């Protein structure tokens, strides 16, 4: 089934690290507003794939179109795309030398060239959205992991991206903090944001995903809507993987 005018269109994507092939012939298209959850065993290329979408990795061959821009070596295009794509990392990667407010405003002020007052206003708005308006003047190290990750989400949202990428946003968190982050992500999904999440939180996936992707050994083994994906996946490997993680 071909979908009209996808916001992300990946065709035959290959990625090599030296001799090692991390991605092979990956095809994936994502509609505006669609929520895609990617899962798969460690080393299967999930991070590599979403890092390619944000140009944090370059790819070896194939084609990758994000928001109508074909990603290539051209530096200017890359920055145009990055401003439309927000990314949330497993390790939060907040800027430790800046306060929460500083973390949120620096991109708006330096990249979007907004005035400081406008930037702060928007920053406070998004802190409200991730339910930590009172932490604005703290430094990242003074926050819990869950709060840090929510700051990271707010930082990405402040750039008002069209697409949000999440790379295992909850796997560095203590169990009691996972839900506060997933709740924020669920609320974000409800606003119609286009999202690609690498996660093994299958409860979240069932609730939010429009499309489930299973990766193994650098290629996509299965793409299906969650109802199909969780009940009768075609690939045997995918079934084994699901059995393993759903038991726990």
């Amino acid at each position: 089934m071909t979908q009209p005018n996808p916001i992300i269109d990946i065709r035959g994507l290959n990625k090599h690290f030296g001799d090692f092939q991390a991605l092979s012939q990956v095809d994936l298209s994502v509609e505006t507003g669609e929520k895609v959850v990617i899962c798969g065993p460690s080393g299967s290329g999930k991070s590599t794939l979403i890092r390619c979408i944000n140009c944090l990795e370059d790819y070896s061959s194939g084609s990758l179109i994000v928001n109508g821009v074909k990603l290539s070596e051209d530096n200017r295009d890359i920055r145009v795309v990055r401003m439309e794509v927000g990314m949330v990392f497993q390790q939060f990667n907040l800027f430790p030398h800046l306060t929460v407010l500083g973390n949120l405003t620096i991109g708006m002020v330096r990249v979007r060239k907004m005035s400081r007052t406008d930037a702060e206003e928007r920053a406070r708005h998004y802190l409200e959205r991730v339910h930590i308006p009172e932490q604005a003047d703290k430094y990242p190290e003074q926050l819990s992991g869950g709060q840090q990750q929510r700051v990271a989400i707010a930082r990405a949202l402040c750039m008002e991206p069209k697409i949000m990428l999440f790379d295992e946003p909850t796997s560095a968190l203590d169990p009691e903090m996972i839900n506060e982050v997933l709740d924020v992500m669920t609320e974000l999904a409800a606003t119609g944001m286009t999202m690609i999440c690498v996660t093994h939180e299958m409860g979240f996936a069932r609730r939010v995903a429009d499309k489930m992707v299973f990766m193994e050994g650098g290629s996509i083994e299965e793409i299906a809507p969650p109802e199909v994906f969780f009940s009768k996946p075609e690939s045997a490997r995918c079934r084994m993987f699901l059995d393993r993680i759903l038991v726990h």
Partner: protein
Amino acid sequence: MNSRPVSILLYLVVMWLIVQLAVNGAASMGYNWQWYRIPQYILAQTDNGIQPGELVTGLVRTVDLTVRSFLLAVALGLVVALLRLSSLVIGVAVATGFLEFIRNLPLLVLLYLIYYVCGPVFGLDRYTASIVCLAVYHSVLISEIFRAGILAVSAGQWEAAQSIGMSRAQSYCYIILPQSIRFVLPPLTGEAVHLIKSSAIVSVIAVAELTTMGRNIISDTFMSFEVWLTVAAIYLVMTLMLSIFVTRLERKFSVASR
């Protein structure tokens, strides 16, 4: 915790032994001590009232020379470090060539090269040539300090900066370098101590700094023991003060970095 008093005590003992050695040695060769003549070279009593003596004038020159070359060395060192870390093939080649060239020359030869060869070509006076020489020489080590400080910032910080659309220059300016400072500042101050000491070498091209002043006084008065001991003491006070500052700084940053 009581290693500090012990090391100060040890230091005083060693200094005392050196002084004893000098005094005894001087006595055995019949040296005529004239310490009373030294103060006039520090603060001179003239018709216009009290004026800085020659040694103090030299000290001011040394400080001026050190500060200027240090600032230039830091700027140059940062540029070299950024070039080496850049993805520009030419940048890396230029930086590496510069490093290898400077690193493998004796400081004295570098000074002669800059004063006698570059000096006439670019019209550098001896003071400027000295500043350039010291700056170039020390920029090599300073660039290593910056390089290490920049690499000490985790790769995740680069990725986060890029993911909010920052260019390489913006990432350096707002994210990476501000975080490198705490790795860089203590060794950088250490390098300033080193620079004060190597500044004495410019006395060979007769820049009127502390060491040159000392030599001039001796050629007039033949008081080599008194003058060199005084000059050494002045350098020592300067470098010790900076070193204590470095230790403070290191302690502060190691606490702050946890």
